[in-house]
């Protein structure tokens, strides 16, 4: 799957298109191992 086609989730369990993260300006994305 291409990165720009992926849907992630907000903390409120709403779908969020990952491509919206960089729609207006570049973004630094930190990928966490897990929560703990």
């Amino acid at each position: 799957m291409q990165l720009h086609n992926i849907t992630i989730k907000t903390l409120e369990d709403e779908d969020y298109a990952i491509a919206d993260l960089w729609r207006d300006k570049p973004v630094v994305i930190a990928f966490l191992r897990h929560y703990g």
Partner: protein
Amino acid sequence: MFCREQVARLSKRVDEIHARGHHLVAIGNGAPYMAKAFAENENITFPLYTDPGKDAYKALGLKNSKAGILKPAVWKRGLRATMSGHKQTGVRGDPFQNGGLAVVGPDGTLRFLHVDDDMGDHADLDSVIAGLDPA
């Protein structure tokens, strides 16, 4: 503990990243309620999202391995994180998933990618921030 260390380091650099014209966000894996609790407990100062299916992790080739826990370098990083106050708590999400850091431009171009080689192998933020191009 490594995830907590990672967000603590990033929280200190938010203003620098914004000053260079970039958003800063974090993405974890696991259910949204796990991410929400983590964000509240760690007082994260930038947006956090979650990727329950780890689709983005897979698309970027981020590593998932049980073997990393056996490496002495991981133990040393664990000691570093613990000594810095980032103690291990109950794991929520995939315990064998490694992290990474990506910079993506407004056209969707992947400008930079650091794939953590194993647990706690975070990107060097000094180098990352120095290389951010707002254009």
